[in-house]
Every structure is written in C-alpha cells, then in structure tokens.
C-alpha cells in the first residue's frame, strides 16, 4: 500500500445514513401491538405525596394502564449508583424509579400512563390527581450544606453525599511558605447536555420466554443490561439491549435512568411492547445535568513564579439522587489532576458531594476535567497579574519537562507521556503572540478592548485499568473486547463492546483493521451496540473508545494475522519461520512470487479443506484489552476576544486549538471532535447556564430560555497538533473526544477578563452574558 489508511482523513461512512434519514433511532422502532407511555413528573422540587388518585385517568380513552410507585413494590429494585468512591462516607440513598412518599426534584417521576397512542397518554396524565404537601427546598450545593437547610434524605445529614479528599505533597507547608497566594471562588454553573436525539426506550417483554428486549438510547448497552438485570430481576442472559443508532450523548446517555426501567416495567406488566420518548422539555428536567460546582480555590507560588501548591474546597452538586457515575466525576476525574501539565509539588482537593432539590448531575463532556483545568488556569492568570508577569511565560516556567514513559504527579497518578512546550511554542508562533500583545496595547489606546487567553492542559482519559476502577469504587471493569472475523470471501466484520454514538468509530475502527490486515477499508464492517451480537464492553465515554476498544481490536487483528501466517506457511509448504507478511500478503522469505493474499487464506480457513494438523477452522479471533494506565492527552489553546464595552457583547475573533492525542487515525474526525468539544466549552463560558428559582423551579426549561451556542457565533477554528504516542497501548493513541471542552471554557474566560482588566473587571461568574459584562464594566468604572 502506498498510502497508509491509518492516518488518512477519509470520509465518515456513517454519514450517508445519518444525513439522508435512513438511520433507525429508538423512536423510529415500531412493533406490532406497541403502546405508549407518558410519565407524570413532580411539579414541585420537594414535597410529600399525600395521595394519588388515578381513577379518572384509568378510564380515559385509549388508556391501557396507570401505575404509581406502589405498583413497583417488590417488582422494580431501586435505581443504582454505580460509582461509589471509597473512604468518603458516601450515602447511597434509595432511588425508586417512581417516587413513593416524597418527590425530591421537579421532574421526579410520580406515575406513568400507558395508552394506545402518546396523545391519549398525555391527555390522561392531566386526569391524575396528586395531593402534595410542599416542603422547603434548596438548589445551591454550598447552601444545601449550611445548618438549617432543608434535609433531602433522612440518611444523609446536612445533605452531604460524601466528603472525598485527594492530597499529595505537603500543601500546608506550600501555603505557609508561599511568597504569593492567589484565591478565587469559581462557580462552575450547572449545564444541560443537549444531545440532538432525546432519550427514548422501547421495551418488549415476551412473557412466554421470560425475555426482555430493550431499545435504549445508551452510550453503554452492556452496562444497561448489567444494571437493568439488577433493577428488574430479569437474568442478564435474558435481556437484550439494542443501542445501535444513538444521536449523541456527551455523557448524558451513560446513566441507568428510571424512565427506561419504567418502560420495561410497563411492558412486563402488560406483555406488550411499550415506547417512551422524552420530549425536549422532559429531557431538560429528567436527563442528567453537568458541572454544578461551587469552588473555593487557591494557589501558592514563589516570587519568581514557581507554583508550589494548589488546593480547593469544592461543593459539588449531585442533584436529588446519586446518578450512575455522578460521584466519580468531581472526585476521581477532577481532584486527581490538579497538577495539569505543570510541575506542582503539592495539591489537595477537598470535595463535598451534596444533595439538592435538583435534577441529578453526572458526566458531561469532560466530566470533572474542565472544572479542574478551569481552576488551575484561572489561578495562574491571577498569579500573573499579581506578579506582573506575562501569563504565558509563567506557564512555560512551570511546565513538566518532556517525558516518554511515565511521570508521577503529586496526587499520586502517573501520566503516560508528554512533551508540552513544543505545542505551546507552535500555538504562540502560529498567532505571533508578541505581535498580538502589541496590537492589544494599541487597541486599548483607542478604547477598544481585545483580550488573549492561553491555556495549557493535560487531562486523564481512556478509562482505564480495571484494577484502578475497582480501587476507586467504579462498579464495573474498564477493559474492552473485540472480535475480528474473516468471512469466506475475504471480507471482514468486527464486533466491538464499545458503543459509538456519533464519534465515527465505524470509520476509524475499519481504518485500524485495514492497516493491521492489509484489506481494503471498505471490506471491513464494524458491528456495535447490540448486546446480542457484540462481546462484552463497558461503553463509550471518558474518551476511551479508541484508546481501549481500538487497542482490543488491534490485538484481535494481530492474532488473526498470526493464524493466517501459520496457515499460509502450510499452504505454501514452507517453514513457518520463513513466511513473512507485507501489505496483505504472506510470502516465502526471498521468494515474493510464492505468496498468498490474506483473503485467499481467509477462504481456505473457512472451507478448511487443507488445515495443518491441530489448527481449528475459521479465521477469527477475539481479544480482551485492559490498559495498564489511563492516557493523558495535552495541549495549548489560545483565544482572542473583543468586548464591545458599549453593550457588553463578546466576539471570539480567533481560536487556536493545539492538541496532542498521539497518532491520529483519521485527522478529519479528530478535528470534528475538537470542533464539537470547543464549541460546548464556549457555550459554558458565554451562554449556557441552568437557572432554578428559590423554590427549585427550573426556569431554563426549554430551548427558549437555555442558550445553546449557534454556528453563526463562531470564527473558523485553527487546529494544530503534535504527536506524542502513549507508551502503553498498542496503537499509541490517546483520547480526543473531550479535550476541546476541557480547554476552551477557561481559555475564553481568561481572554475576556484579560480584555476587561483595564476597566477594573477582575472576576465574573459564567456565563459571560452581555448584560453581566456591561454591568461589570459600569461597576468597574465606578459609575
């Protein structure tokens, strides 16, 4: 092959069906006799349920059944939390799928109607009469821990879900001995993930077989089967979960939700297929939210700008119940990477997980790492102002020097590989940083306010070694598996345990196989998302699919190739040691004309007319890959913004993303992942933010009130990269799915504050809306 397919920006093979509408999403599934569920949700953030009267609803046109929490007693087990970090006194509170005595957030399920069509189900919802006794509620995580705050769970005093500490090095000494200490209070506002496809479930129980088939909008169908078995009591081998076409997730389709289990419950009761699809408004209420930290953070440094310590006290909102992976996000995925890309002797994260009367919080793109990167980079910019030095030079001074195989940081984790400064230099050179600073000075002279933000980051992803998963309380493994199967005609199918839902692995995984086996990329089909025909896998999240699942696939391919080589030796009547492989062909050393293509070998293995003694027929292999470590991608991002001081409007003029995710299988797809992540991060910086009123009513409950970024708001992104392979996985690859969101929020934030500093503005809470910016400018100028 002259051009290597690994590394080629070929088009995504998924796109034709997605663009033309040929894809079959869960809501597209139609089954004979299917009925439709609608869920009655609490209008109150916190209330006792005094009584529920379903009489009228039960008799409404088309209604098949109405169920309340009492009907699920002894049938549905509580919804589990599957990430319970150790040594933090975590309160795994009861989470019934349908609330029984108390509702704890606006959106908590109270009853479900099943009807012949969805309109009839919605009509009947209005006929259910629920009597509530409204209780006081609390929404802010720090306020929820204050004395006198409303108590949300009896067994979680002060609403404390857990108190987790990660400390390494002597932070007390670092701060006691510091020449300079800078501090900030950062509100990582609550965000609403907005996958284009709302959540949906079609549950089909077959009573005669005792089997459940569940179409589910999930990033991890094997986990849905695993946890669904625990909730419903159906043995795992009698549950089939199908999530082959999922329209985005960003973390919000990781959790085991109540609603999918309610649909399964209804199907089991009625012995009919049941569909439930969230409306967009319902998604805002009942699909997990992200972030929600109140953080008190500080940084210690010498007068020369050497950072000696970072510490935090974080109140991390968990919402009303612990979502599946919720507690792992502000702890393991946040508190362990306070060093970022810097050499910092001491870090300490004091994390309080807190219950509040709000939608449960779980992983949202970046999950813990955007929050960590934000606080590190914010504090460094504050230090630069304090010391009167250039923020970029301050960063450079503290970067960890190049390392190729392991670097320990204070929190106790070991980074895999890193070479941070070249990418910093590349980004600075690309924009001519010094010239930009000069331009900024000239603009200020004429009353125009441009700001520059530069972020260096290193993050932890590619989750991860299973032994570590067990040690940190993750209720499962974090390995992956894959099967590579040659068909008689020499075409290949691979079956993977991960569950791509828009990231493009149908394309990139075919590229891995084409590269490993020398077959045409179009001769490889990638099968995923259905537990009945894919091997076990823990799912697609935490930028792990390629680093872990792709590695499993490469190992399976290498097993296949070795078997093919042995069979080739037999067929070529050559000694095994004399048969070599190049570009899809096996040949006898020194006689390239004596050769067999891998497709010919596949045919002969499948017909098995002439196998060596002891060799099994067929040409396929499976591999299980448990990574020895996480992967640690890194980069430098730079934003140039302009603020219109007359109206507070912020325009991003330039954005440069420099990222190193190791070797890129498909650079176009890498760029796409960066684009999406960066935009979501900008959304947090400038527009997005959940607002609850004091009674726990979600005021940002629709697209009208919740500002998602739109395409016209952005400049073209400038994408740069370096390649530093991970030493420990077979492909050397690192994750790229989240880096954009991890770096871009603080990059834009710091740029805006950099623009406004001459006007006396040194702090703003996100999102940086024009109104907020305008008011701050007025206040800064003392008018």
């Amino acid at each position: 092959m002259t051009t290597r397919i690994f590394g080629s920006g070929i088009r995504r093979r998924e796109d034709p069906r997605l663009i033309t509408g040929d894809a079959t999403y869960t809501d597209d599934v139609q089954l004979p006799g299917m009925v439709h569920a609608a869920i009655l949700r609490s209008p109150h953030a916190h209330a006792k349920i005094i009584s529920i009267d379903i009489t009228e609803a039960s008799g409404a046109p088309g209604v098949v059944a109405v169920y309340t929490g009492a009907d699920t007693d002894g049938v549905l087990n509580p919804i589990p939390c599957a990430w319970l970090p150790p040594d933090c006194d975590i309160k795994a509170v009861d989470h019934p799928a349908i609330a029984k005595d108390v509702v704890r957030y606006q959106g908590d399920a109270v009853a479900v109607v099943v009807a012949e069509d969805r309109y009839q189900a919605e009509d009947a919802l209005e006929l259910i009469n629920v009597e509530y006794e409204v209780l006081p509620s609390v929404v802010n995580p720090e306020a929820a821990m204050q004395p006198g705050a409303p108590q949300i769970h009896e067994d979680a005093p002060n609403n404390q879900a857990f108190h987790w500490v990660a400390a390494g090095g002597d932070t007390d000494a670092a701060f006691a001995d510091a020449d300079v200490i800078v501090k900030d209070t950062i509100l990582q506002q609550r965000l609403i993930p907005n996958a284009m496809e709302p959540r949906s479930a079609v549950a089909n129980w077959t009573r005669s077989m005792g089997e459940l088939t569940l179409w589910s909008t999930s990033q991890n169908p094997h986990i849905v089967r695993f946890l669904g078995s625990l909730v419903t009591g159906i043995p795992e081998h009698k549950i089939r979960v199908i999530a082959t076409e999922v329209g985005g997730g960003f973390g919000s389709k990781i959790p085991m939700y109540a609603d999918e289990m309610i649909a399964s419950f209804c199907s089991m009761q009625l012995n009919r297929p049941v569909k439930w699809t969230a409306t967009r408004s319902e998604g805002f209420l009942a699909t997990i939210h992200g972030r929600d930290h109140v953080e008190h953070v500080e940084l210690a440094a010498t007068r020369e700008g050497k950072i000696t310590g970072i510490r935090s006290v974080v109140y991390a909102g968990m919402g009303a119940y612990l979502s599946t992976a919720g507690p792992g996000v502000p702890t393991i995925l946040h508190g362990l990477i306070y060093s970022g890309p810097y050499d910092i002797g001491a870090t300490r994260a004091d994390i309080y997980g807190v219950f509040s009367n709000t939608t449960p919080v779980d992983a949202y793109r970046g999950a813990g790492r955007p929050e960590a990167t934000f606080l590190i980079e914010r504090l460094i910019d504050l230090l630069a102002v304090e010391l009167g030095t250039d923020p970029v030079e301050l960063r450079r001074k503290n970067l960890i020097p190049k390392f190729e195989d392991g670097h320990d940081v204070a929190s106790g984790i070991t980074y895999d590989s890193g070479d941070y400064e070249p990418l910093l230099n590349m980004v600075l050179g690309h924009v001519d940083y010094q010239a930009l600073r000069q331009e900024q000075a000239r603009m200020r002279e004429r009353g125009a306010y441009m700001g520059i933000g530069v972020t260096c980051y290193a993050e932890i992803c590619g989750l991860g070694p299973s032994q570590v998963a067990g040690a940190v309380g993750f209720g499962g493994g974090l390995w992956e598996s894959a099967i590579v199967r040659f068909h008689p005609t020499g075409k290949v199918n691979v079956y993977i345990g991960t569950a791509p839902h828009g990231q493009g692995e149908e394309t990139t995984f075919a590229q891995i196989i084409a590269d490993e086996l020398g077959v045409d990329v179009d001769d490889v089909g990638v099968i995923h998302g259905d537990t009945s025909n894919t091997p076990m896998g823990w799912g697609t999240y935490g930028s792990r699919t390629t680093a872990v699942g792709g590695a499993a696939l490469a190992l399976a391919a290498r097993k296949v190739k070795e078997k093919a080589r042995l069979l080739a030796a037999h067929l070529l009547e050559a000694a095994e040691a004399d048969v070599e492989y190049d570009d899809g062909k096996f040949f006898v050393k020194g006689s390239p004309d004596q050769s067999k293509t891998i497709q010919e070998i596949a045919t002969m293995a499948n017909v098995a007319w002439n196998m060596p003694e002891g060799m099994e027929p067929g040409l396929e292999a499976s591999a299980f890959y448990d990574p020895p470590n996480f992967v640690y991608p890194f980069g430098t991002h730079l934003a140039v913004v302009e603020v219109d001081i007359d109206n507070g409007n912020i325009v991003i003029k330039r954005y440069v993303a420099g990222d190193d995710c190791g070797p890129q299988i498909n650079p176009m797809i890498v760029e796409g992942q960066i684009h999406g992540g960066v935009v979501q991060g900008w959304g947090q910086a400038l527009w997005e933010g959940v607002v609850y009123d004091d009674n726990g009513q979600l005021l940002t409950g629709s697209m009208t009130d919740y500002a998602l970024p739109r395409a016209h708001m952005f400049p073209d992104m400038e994408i740069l990269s370096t390649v530093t392979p991970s030493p420990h996985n077979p492909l050397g690859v690192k994750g790229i799915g989240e880096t954009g969101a991890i770096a871009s929020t603080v990059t834009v934030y710091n740029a805006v504050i950099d623009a406004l500093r001459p006007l006396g503005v040194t702090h703003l809470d996100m999102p940086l809306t024009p109104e907020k910016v305008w008011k701050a400018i007025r206040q800064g100028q003392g008018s």
Partner: protein
Amino acid sequence: MFATEFEYQKVSSVSEAIQLLSSNEGAKILAGGHSLIPLMKLRLAEPPLVIDIGGIYELR
C-alpha cells in the same frame, strides 16, 4: 410536546375566517404558527378549532 385534540380548518377567504371565528368560541387563527403551535404543544393553549388563514389569496 403533545397538543390536545383540536379541529383544523383551512379557509380561502377573509369572510369565511371571520364567520368561523365568530361562531366557534375559543377558536384561534393560525398564520405562521411560531407562537400558537409551541403554546399548544406545551398545552398552554387548547383551542378547540384552529383556523388556518395561510391560503387566503386576498391577504397576499
């Protein structure tokens, strides 16, 4: 986002629209639908009859 059941009539003249509007209590006019339809889907508006005036030539 599921509206309650309603009747729908598309009219071809202003006089027909006025006649339907005056003889059906709670009827609503549908022009572009950007306000009315979301309100109906949120069940904040539940008109028994929606009169579509999009086909009235004399209003063009």
